[in-house]
């Protein structure tokens, strides 16, 4: 029991500070041992003096490297929206809070899933009471949650005999959106044509309430919502949906049909199909957003109602980033959204069903949708 506690303590201790020998350090330590043996064998005090010098260099290495790693403030800045396989830029702000002592030879790494990832940040000199902002490219291969657990600081200062590392618990949680890929030309043409053959209502001010917000100079006074303004004692205006807004519903089932297994491994065929479907859904959302469609998405049981704007789009990306295949029960009823996908649509609304894999039951159920796409079938 006591031994376990000791081991636990050392595990905790080494999580924050660790030290290991470099190749030069190994030679130096071996040489020190040899001098020590010579001193003991000869009883020569001058050899003891040299041994003391070598040991003092080792001790000084420990003291000075600790000074290097002390009183550093690190802040990480990561972009708000990150897409899989799309390079982005993160930044680390490193400040030396020591009043007199500079920091030398500092390497800064991210700790991801317990592994230090070198971002190429190598600082030779950070003066006292000074800081620096270091940006680095960040490329994440897979969508989903991405957690940076901390920061690992390494230094070989002062003599390059040891590598001293300190781990700072500076966590950062991100949701990586699915990879956006350009849609095939064939599909683009098809979708464009599909949009145009639908009837479009007249242009003008709509009536369906979209949002209530505070009055801003320049707003049409006719749009003031007097009841709410009276209730909140400040001017509020109503925003209505434009009547010429085209609508699109994109559905992505996440239930894995009977007889198909998802191993969870990224390289497995089922998982790959699902990822392709997620990517296609995100790309479709992006495509329709660029064409000012009001987009509604159905992702498994989750429904995001029609909406426009970047915030809405990022909400869709976020849900897509976090969705994952779920096992479907034979007796489980199909969700309301999917059952009515081909029926309950606004005027001129497009409905697109993106299938990760062949699902005859769903295809039969959603017979009325505008298009059924299978990610794997696209060129």
């Amino acid at each position, binding site marked *: 029991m006591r031994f376990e506690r000791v081991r636990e303590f050392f595990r905790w201790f080494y999580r924050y500070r660790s030290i290991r020998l470099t190749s030069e350090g190994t030679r130096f330590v071996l040489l020190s041992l040899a001098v020590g043996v010579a001193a003991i064998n000869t009883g020569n005090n001058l050899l003891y003096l040299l041994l003391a010098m070598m040991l*003092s260099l080792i001790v000084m290495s420990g003291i000075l490297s600790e000074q290097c790693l002390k009183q550093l403030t690190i802040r990480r800045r990561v972009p708000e929206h990150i897409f899989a396989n799309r390079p982005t830029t993160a930044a680390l702000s490193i400040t030396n809070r020591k009043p007199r002592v500079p920091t030398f030879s500092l390497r800064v790494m991210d700790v991801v899933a317990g592994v230090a990832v070198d971002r190429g940040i190598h600082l030779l000199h950070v003066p006292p009471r000074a800081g620096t902002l270091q940006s680095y490219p960040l490329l994440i291969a897979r969508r989903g949650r991405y957690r940076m657990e901390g920061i690992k600081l390494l230094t070989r200062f002062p003599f390059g005999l040891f590598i001293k590392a300190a781990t700072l618990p500076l966590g950062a949680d991100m949701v990586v959106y699915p990879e956006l890929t350009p849609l095939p030309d064939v599909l683009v043409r098809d979708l464009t044509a599909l949009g145009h053959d639908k009837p479009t209502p007249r242009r003008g001010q709509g009536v369906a309430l979209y949002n209530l917000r505070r009055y801003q100079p320049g707003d049409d006074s006719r749009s003031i919502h007097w009841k709410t303004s009276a209730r909140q004692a400040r001017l509020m205006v109503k925003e209505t949906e434009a009547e010429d807004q085209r609508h699109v519903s994109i559905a992505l089932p996440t239930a894995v049909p009977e007889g198909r297994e998802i191993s969870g491994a990224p390289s497995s065929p089922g998982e790959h199909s699902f990822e392709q479907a997620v990517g296609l859904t995100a790309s479709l959302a992006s495509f329709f957003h660029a064409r000012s469609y009001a987009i509604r998405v159905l992702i498994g049981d989750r429904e995001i109602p029609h909406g426009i704007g970047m915030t809405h789009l990022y909400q869709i990306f976020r849900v897509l980033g976090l969705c994952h295949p779920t096992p479907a029960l034979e007796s489980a009823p199909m969700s309301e959204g999917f059952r009515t996908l081909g029926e309950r649509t606004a005027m001129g609304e497009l409905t697109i069903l993106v299938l990760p894999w062949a699902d005859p039951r769903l295809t039969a159920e959603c017979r009325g949708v505008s298009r059924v796409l299978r990610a794997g079938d696209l060129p």
Partner: protein
Amino acid sequence: MNLERAFRLSSVLLAASGFTGLILTGQLPIGLVGLGLVSLAVSLAHVVGWGADWLIFRLSREAWNALIIAAFVALGVDFLWISEDLLPAGVHFLVLLMVNKLLTLQERKDFLHLYAISLLEILSAAALTVELWYGAVFVAYLLAAIWTLLLYHLRNEAEEAHAILQLTGGPMDPVRTPGPITGRFFWTTNGIAVGAFCLTLAIFFVIPRIGAGFFQKNRAELIRTSGFSEKVDLGIIGSIKLDETVVMRVEFPDQKGPVAERLYFRGAAYDVYNGRSWANSLARRHVVGRTQDGVHIVVATEPSSTEQTGLRQEVLVEALDTPALFGVPVVDSVKGLFFLMLVDGMGNLYLPYLPSTRFQYSAHSIPSNLLEEERTAKTFSYPSHVKEHFLQLPGLSPRVAELARAVVRQAQTPYEMAIAVERHLREDYRYSLDVGITVPESPVEEFLFTRKSGYCEHYATAMVVMLRALGIPTRLVTGFLPGEWNDFGNYYTVRQWDAHAWVEVFFPRSGWITFDPTPSVTAAVTSPLWSMLGRVVDSIRLKWDRFVILYSFRDQMAVAQDIRERSDKVRSQVSASLASTLRWVAAGRARVAEFLRASD
């Protein structure tokens, strides 16, 4: 200065400091010294940009490797036929390797090899010398090593940072590129060196001295002394009276300044005089007892009496060619790092072996005072063995005895006779080292009646034969006078020219009492500044010897004991003051309570 140049300069200086250590050992042939110095100068000129590039890297790598192989062959030849010892041969080989590296410094590994060579050089120097200069070389080496290792590391880091920048195409941020060596960096690095030096000293004194010196090989030459063997020719001390070589240094830890009375460091005593030389007929030695604390007891005394009246001496003796131990008479105990100590019938103290290096010991003496009743006693009854050994005379002319009787004609007691002879010799004879080249038939008669000048041996021998002629047991003693008092280190520096001979006169109850018939000699006048500098350097040398070269497990135990005693003292003082505070508080409370009762 930029980082690269500073790095190369410090690397060359590191090699130079290691090489200096080797040169100062005196073990390098002049050719290798010249070769090493030239290569250092060329490398230095190349680093500082004085245009020595034409000399560097002229030869190809293969040619240099061929030279290394040749040097290795030379090492074998040197070891087998020239030096016939691995250490000198290895040192010669090291110099050749250093020359090679200095002239081919290009890659990172070349610098690492140079550092390893310089470390081996300074290690070899440590094995070859114990002199004070090694301390200076060591400090220089430590400073250069700190600079070099630091700059080597920063240079490597700069190279790696540069490689990363090239790979990522990042901006040339000031924090990612090496700057010049600034004044702040200079002083910071020197501060690190000072810190490392202090830490080195701390570690040096703390590392347990578990070494027994099994493979220690002494290479120091012994200092030749005269007058301490079993047979001493008259006049032999005269040959060293102009030699200023230091033979020992003596501290008196219980005294604050120089000792008031005249001191003699007794080495050997002789009883048999054959007219030309002195001999010791009681030279049979036996081992003296040793206590558990390592103290060799020569004369058993009451501890309380000796502690109060004794004289403690810390003696640091150079590597002399005699096993004799020196001390102020009468030495009653000796403590040192030797398991055995011998004493002969004359009270002479010896080590059982010839010490090959300088060594130190602590001696304790009790003064030999003449008892008042013996000062005034007219005759003594001497034991037969005393009469047998210490009244012996060679075949001298009757003039000697007549002179003795004439000198002491007014003396009533043996003590007064001794004083009269001592005064006569001091006042009527002249001190001179110039006694001629030819050895007379009877040097003492030559001294007494013809030349009437001589040095300590003549004076002492003359007094011995005159007192023996009067029937007073006497013997000749050789040793050293205290020499020069060093007020910087609070010790006496004893040199060869302080060698001295004097007389011991036997009194049955008081023992052997010292008499010195040699007149005082005025020391040669030297420049005060030069003399002061000499004393400062000598005191540093003593501290170097005592605290570095001869620092031992015994010293560590003494320091530990001292710390323990001090901490005990502090603890008792703290507890005493706490107790008194508590008593004071309790008394205060009692008084307040009494006052309150009274007021009620």
